[in-house]
């Protein structure tokens, strides 16, 4: 009797069920492409204007600036979006018929007028990623994510990279920001440690985790909190060998940098 009931119940369920799954691709199986974001200047003096367009008609673009993941209830993006302070912002597109887009990360940084001289002490950028020399790091010009042929980038392939900064006079420095590129497909990785030294004393140190999987190409900022007066300083950048999951495992990766930004503002972020 129990078996008869079970078989009967199964037949009822099967009768309710669609006989075939669809052969063709369904809307709900596909994700939106990323929102279309255009920034007039990632490095700005007064404000950055961000143009935000959805990838698909009637899609919403939402965002956060507090580091939390973007969800369907995050604020809707205005277009354009105006930013006037250092901001790390995330965007994501939503549409009822499709899966959400990937999250798009952008950062903007406010620049000042602090002048400094730069020199390489133990390593040099390698051709062809040294076209403009060290002046590329203080000309307020961002490199493009498609770095090939873009002369704003300096590319190093050393285990340790040292850059010496010399200021005209002792200058209060709240933060030093390194503007870098990470592109694992192109063997360009983030540092695993960054130090700032003053008179051989380490006054700042930041470590980063070794990536466990490949990440998409991204423009990045490393904000190094200094909060002291500097006449000179040395940036020491440490690279790990490429991890085992990558085709270049065990070799020295590239480090790409296009700008060093001084934040001399005593005020907040």
């Amino acid at each position, binding site marked *: 009797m129990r078996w008869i009931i079970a078989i009967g119940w199964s037949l009822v369920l099967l009768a309710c069920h*669609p006989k075939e*799954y669809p052969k*063709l*691709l*369904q809307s709900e199986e*596909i994700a939106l492409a990323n929102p279309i974001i255009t920034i007039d200047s990632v490095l700005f003096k007064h404000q950055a204007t961000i143009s935000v367009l959805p990838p698909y008609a009637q899609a919403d673009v939402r965002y956060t600036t507090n580091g939390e993941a973007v969800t369907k209830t995050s604020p809707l993006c205005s277009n354009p979006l105006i930013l006037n302070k250092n901001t790390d912002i995330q965007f994501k597109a939503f549409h009822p018929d499709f899966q959400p887009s990937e999250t798009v990360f952008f950062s903007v940084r406010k620049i000042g007028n602090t002048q400094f001289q730069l020199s390489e002490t133990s390593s040099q950028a390698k051709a062809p990623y040294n076209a403009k020399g060290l002046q590329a790091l203080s000309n307020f010009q961002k490199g493009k994510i498609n770095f090939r042929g873009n002369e704003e980038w300096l590319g190093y392939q050393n285990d340790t990279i040292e850059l010496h900064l010399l200021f005209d006079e002792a200058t209060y420095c709240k933060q030093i920001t390194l503007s870098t590129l990470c592109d694992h497909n192109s063997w360009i990785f983030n540092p695993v440690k960054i130090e700032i030294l003053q008179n051989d004393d380490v006054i700042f140190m930041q470590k980063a985790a070794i990536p466990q999987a490949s990440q998409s190409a991204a423009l990045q900022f490393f904000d190094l909190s200094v909060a002291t007066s500097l006449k000179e300083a040395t940036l020491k950048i440490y690279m790990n060998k490429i991890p085992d999951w990558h085709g270049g495992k065990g070799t020295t990766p590239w480090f790409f940098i296009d700008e060093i930004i001084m934040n001399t503002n005593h005020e907040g972020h």
Partner: protein
Amino acid sequence: MNRRNFIKNTSFGFAAIGLPSFPNNHWKDLIIGHGSHRYKIDLNWGALNANFYPVKDCHEMVIDQKGRIFLLTNHTKNNVLIYNKSGQLLQTWGTTYPGAHGLTIKDEGGEEFLYITDNERHEVIKTTLDGREIMVLPYPAASGKYESATQYIPTETAIADNGDIYVADGYGLQYILQYSAKGELLNIFGGRGNDDKHLDNAHGISIDQRDPKNPKLLVTDRMKNQLKTYTFEGEYKGLTDLRGAYICRPVIKDDLVYLATIWSGESGTGKGFIAILDKNNQLISAPGGIAPEYTNGKLRRMYQALSVFHHPHDVCIDKDDNLYVAQWNSGQTYPIKLIRV
């Protein structure tokens, strides 16, 4: 888990725990494209057992007069896979083309031939449809432009009605080389430079006979997002700007040009879509991309709209105007069919 299994397993899950199943009208076929050229998608059209018929990059596809569809991959277990329109595998051949990249078909006096560009062998190889080699064009040392074979990395061919063979050196020095049907080098033009006549990733080439009185060559300048026109003698005649569209090769059927677009957007950081141009080379539909819009004759920058494609590398069109899309670097996936609606 593939798409079919995902759907199948998910549905079984609902049934097993006694949840109400979806009504049949729950399903909503995705339609991509714009205006008169819109398509449904069969992701599994060309799917095969990768243990027996593996692919690496699916680079290009052509269709013969019998309607058989030839796929070229750089997997040397089977460089050429031949399908029927239903996606059934008919035949495979080819084990000696590690850099198999470009595939062109040409009817030459009643018999069709294939032209394969191999960018690891630095050669162009002419074969019969069943894989018998007829001719090999080595690197053009006699041109005086190349110091070694490694500088010559051909990506595509186009065959004129008089038998002349045009080769695009799209990953090499960016020249277009014109050979006679017998393989004699006749002319060389294009190359790198800053003028419009120069090329930067001359990835694809085709013979454009849409205007019978004015046949010409179409060449994709992929990094500049431009489709360029030359005479058969190599004189530059003009260009079409397709901002944001990193176009691979022009494929012409009737009055239209179809182009797989491998990347999109600013600096090519976005994924690709398919571009369809009308007889005036205006973009009229972009399956997988945003709607084409022109302002004062200028196309807005193109981006991907839906994540249907990864890196579309070539498109093949059948007599019913369905499209077959081969993709580069997409996780060894097989070609996709777009069914015109």
